[in-house]
């Protein structure tokens, strides 16, 4: 889906760590049309804990090395195959 204001923009992954030297965890996502809003939304939405580092990464900027197939599309493929089998040739 093309990011527009109507759907809130793009997905941004939010990463944080709670103390110096701790690992970064993915703590959630925000939807925003630009970097400034992604930063502001991340801070205002995920500020319940005192994070020493908080970062946002545009989901489309992530380069996957290995990725599990999404379950929904797997299910879609199974349903599509069943429908195909049931339909007369």
């Amino acid at each position, binding site marked *: 889906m093309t990011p527009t*204001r109507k759907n*809130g*923009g793009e997905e941004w992954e939010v990463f944080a760590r709670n103390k110096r030297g701790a690992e970064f965890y993915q703590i959630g996502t*925000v*939807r*925003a*049309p*630009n*970097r*400034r*809003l*992604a*930063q*502001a*939304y991340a*801070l*205002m*939405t995920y*500020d319940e804990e005192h994070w020493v580092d908080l970062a946002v990464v545009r989901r489309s900027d992530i380069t996957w090395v290995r990725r599990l197939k999404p379950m929904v599309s797997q299910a879609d493929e199974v349903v599509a195959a069943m429908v195909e089998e049931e339909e007369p040739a």
Partner: protein
Amino acid sequence: MTVQEKLQIDTRAQEAMTRLFTVLADTKYRLGQHLANCSWMGPVMEASVATSAMAQGELGRARLLYWLIEEMTGQAAEDLPVDAAVRAAGDALPEIKPEPETWVELIAAIYAIKTATRVVLQGLLDAPDPALHRRLKKMDDEEHYEILYAEGWIEDLLADTGSLPARVRAALAHYLPPTRAWLAAGETAVLTAAGLLPAGFNLGDEFAARVEEFARSVGTSLTV
């Protein structure tokens, strides 16, 4: 020891600081109330959550400023004889609508008020006298993210292909020049002489420079 004793400022500087803080505090109090009432206006969930968070922060920062005024003067903020005409009219910054009616106007007002606040805070934080630093630093950090919020929205609205860019420009033209004028006409000279602002620092010019820098970063120019 009161803030005034720590600052060791004369009466004129104290009055100037009180006027500056009172107008900012009144504006922030009104903006906080308005944000609390219209957080539902956010076009997306994150925007509404952010508006609610800002309302809470804005009311808290107004309270901190009123408390500093009280400590400086020994008088409750509502009893101060400052900017009586402005306060009686219910407006904080002159010519600025205290309760903007649309999302576009709300964003423009947030941007103008918060950028003005940050210019004042950073001027005071850059001053050689550290008496106010501890109290103002947290407020300054919080304003930074809320300015990002307003800037992000302005950037997005300006990139629209419909009527929104013209509307956001009109709203900014309504809020930015009076805010700059208020800062420029204000207390710079007295506060600089008292060592509360760095030498050569002008609140109005600094405000204009920040707006122009933001406008350049999104490839446009804005009337300030």
